[in-house]
């Protein structure tokens, strides 16, 4: 979701970006996730013509999606802080 924060992206583009981080092993599994996000109203989609092939479905965050992302970011920061603290503690002892 963070990847589509700035601009609408299409799935293949998202997969490319995720693959670079090494976070995605089976690329196809992103599609059910995107469908789910759409069904939950966190993203909206739009077909757009592409210069080199069939039209592509672009994904864009909705207002609700942005709120969910913000919520996740703060949760994640707290979680990361907590894990870091435990790891630091473990290193000391």
């Amino acid at each position, binding site marked *: 979701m963070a990847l589509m924060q700035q601009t609408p992206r*299409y*799935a*293949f583009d998202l*997969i490319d970006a995720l693959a670079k981080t090494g976070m995605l092993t*089976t*690329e*196809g*599994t992103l*599609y*059910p*996730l*995107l*469908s*789910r996000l759409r*069904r939950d109203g966190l993203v909206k989609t739009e077909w757009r013509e592409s210069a*080199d*092939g*069939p*039209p*592509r*479905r672009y994904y864009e965050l909705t207002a609700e999606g942005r709120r969910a992302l913000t919520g996740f970011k703060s949760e994640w920061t707290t979680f990361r802080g907590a894990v870091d603290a435990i790891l630091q503690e473990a290193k000391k002892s």
Partner: protein
Amino acid sequence: MTAPHADQLIDGYLARICAAAHDFPAAARDELLDDMRSHIADARARDSQETDATILNILDRLGEPAVLVAEARERLGIKTQQPERPGLLEIAALVLLLFLWPAGVVLLWLSSQWKTRDKIIGSVFSLGGYPGISLIGLVLAGAGAGHGSRCITVRNAAGDVLQSSCSGTSVLDIIGSVAQTALVIVLFLLPVLTAAYLAIRLRRWHRLETIAA
């Protein structure tokens, strides 16, 4: 350049997804297939020297159809459908329809294995089962008792027969009794035929569903 077996490989892959997602709502399945198609098109567009290996790699990275469909099933909350098979309820419905009609009709309507049209046919043409038919038979017999051969005998005071005229077995009477016998046979066959019809519909419907799957 297009890979020599690109279409076969891709169609085969999509067919496997389609098969694994056979019980999805059509919209969800179509969306998944559309996504796969456009993904494959996008992936192919970036390789100018496409070989069969390129296609196989694209499909490999996409993932096993069964895994993808399982993932979609979980994300979208689609339950695995166990194909319902005709069971005890249906057998009981057919038997009771013949011998304990009201209970048979109730079971017939409770079952999800028949279409409404067949349920209506089953309820009406089983004619109340054999108890119901016996009742109908009794009524018909009562109505038929008035017919038959009638003789009018005129006697004198001493009891000698003066004149005896029988309306006897006229052609009309023969036709009448043949018709009556035929009616009785039809009446007795009808519930069995209805049950047989229902049994056939049961299997046919089931088979069609399996084919659709």
